[in-house]
């Protein structure tokens, strides 16, 4: 599941991010040509259409958490190629390439932080690492982050962006859905709050497990969120999909998420929410 063929591919997203260093860039959504510095000043939000460009993990931490408060957990867990998976390239080589490109061991960073003084556990997916796909390490790091939050009796916040389960780990990646859901079930029994922020894009096995299990589910404006990829759906039903299909606004209208939150309000909203749900 998951790894759908995007019209807007991972490479496109990266291209836009890369072009941020240049003078001008084209919005992923409205295709407007915008002055890069203006987008940067605007928290990487398109001034024309409110599209939220992907944040890197570092940008997310700087934007959301209190200065110097983030302490990383489990950065040293690395994946194994249990299936010895080879397609046009071996999984081992893909991993090495992703590690080299991102400087990270895997597609999620987890840790403890404070947000306006509230202490909480946090997990942040990294789309640049193999499309943020969930394999064994991502599943394990989410479970450990949940366990650590449980031990410390603190809330857990998960910020998602993912193409879904990682195909190169076969059924083992599928099982990460069950594994993380099981950890979340224990977390819920302890009546601790689990908050999800869905960002562009979140699909497949990640949506069909952790991402949809938040007590409160927030989403960034215009984020694409779904189970099946739009192309797969179009091929199945042999119809064109309506405009705005699978965007955050569509999910809100259909009752699937609690709130759409702009970056400029995000820290304040999470702070307010934590005041209501913190133990």
């Amino acid at each position, binding site marked *: *599941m*998951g*790894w*759908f063929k995007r019209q807007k591919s991972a490479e496109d997203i990266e291209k836009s991010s890369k072009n941020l260093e240049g003078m001008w860039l084209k919005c992923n959504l409205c295709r407007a040509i915008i002055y890069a510095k203006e987008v940067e000043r605007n928290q990487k939000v398109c001034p024309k259409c409110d599209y939220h460009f992907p944040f890197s993990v570092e940008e997310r931490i700087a934007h959301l958490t209190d200065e110097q408060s*983030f*302490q*990383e*957990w*489990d*950065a*040293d*867990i*690395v*994946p194994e*190629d249990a*299936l010895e*998976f080879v*397609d*046009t390239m071996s999984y081992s080589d893909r991993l090495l390439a992703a590690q080299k490109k991102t400087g990270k*061991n895997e597609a999620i960073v987890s*840790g403890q932080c404070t947000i306006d003084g509230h202490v909480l556990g946090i997990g942040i997916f990294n789309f640049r690492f193999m499309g943020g796909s969930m*394999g*064994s390490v991502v599943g*394990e790091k989410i*479970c450990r982050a949940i366990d650590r939050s449980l031990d410390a009796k603190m809330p857990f916040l998960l910020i998602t962006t993912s193409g879904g*389960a*990682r*195909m190169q780990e*076969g*059924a*083992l990646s*599928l*099982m*990460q*859905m*069950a*594994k993380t*859901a*099981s950890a979340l*079930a*224990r977390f819920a*029994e302890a009546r601790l709050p689990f908050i999800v922020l869905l960002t562009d894009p979140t699909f*497949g*096995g990640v*949506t*069909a*497990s*952790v991402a*949809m*299990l938040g007590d409160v589910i927030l989403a960034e404006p215009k984020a694409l969120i779904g*189970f*099946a990829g739009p192309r*797969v*759906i179009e091929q*199945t*039903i042999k*119809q064109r999909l*309506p405009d705005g299909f699978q965007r955050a606004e569509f999910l809100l209208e*259909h*009752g699937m998420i609690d709130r759409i939150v702009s970056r400029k309000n995000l820290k304040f909203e999470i702070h307010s929410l934590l005041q209501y749900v913190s133990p």
Partner: protein
Amino acid sequence: MKEYLDFEKPIRELEERITRLQKAGSKKQSVQDQIEKQTIRLNDLEIEIYGNLTPWQRSQIARHPQRPSISNYLELITQNFLELHGDRLFGDDRAIIGGFTQINEQPVMVIGQEKGKTLKERMQRNFGMPNPEGYRKALRLMKMAEKFKRPIITFIDTPGAYPGLEAEQRGQAEAIARNLLTMARLRVPIIAIITGEGGSGGALALGVADRVLILEHSIYSVISPEGCAAILWDDATKAAQAASALKLTAPELIKIGVVDEVISEPLGGAHRDVEATALHLQQTIQTQLRQISALPVETLLRERDEKFRRMGAIRQAHNSSHEKAST
């Protein structure tokens, strides 16, 4: 009518030849000798072909149009099946069958996907691809089983959850996720059996269990071989290669710890002897159910969580400088 898969062509030809000889009805010794000789050859051929199945051939058997499904097993190994319908929210998804029944004289809740046998039934059942209301019906029935303290047995056979526009609108992802979370903590024993095609999240939504069993020629995968080939090879015709890479067959799945037991099938697949398969399945269910029913609930739940927690291939890198630097 017997249906043959492409790689079964030599078997088909030989079977037809034997039938022709038999039909001729000749009592001549030479003809009788010929029939006997060809029958021995057929046996050897079957052992050769079915004994060396590739992952792609196994996938084809798992999806065989005559492969027995939950309906067959309900009929053959359970008594007094009482089907229960609907999710109480939207509708009744016929891609999933569920209800109370008795197996080995024990009352249980049985739930599973049904692809259908005839074209008409297949269409009614959406080829075994559930919509959110199917998963929500399953969830309702599982919670009922918990309330009345009945074990749950699920039969998994689906290409996957239906990738449709309305399925997305009604929260396909949420429905699957909710089942995973709820099944993890249901206070009754759960057995999941992959009887055919275990198609990704749509299969797993009935698969969080104390014991996960798989029929020998069933498959269980994160993505279909065709889907995987289309994405990674950019070529859907590379499905056979993808099937090998995905390690989706029963013997491979037990090696990586995703399933607990492989239930053997008659030579060539369950459809070649449905009664024998059903009987074998019944015995396995009985043994497994006896084991997990003996456990105290807290132990059952702890072991269920730990079982899935162990799944995965990870390693702790020794240079943990990264973590230390940031703490």
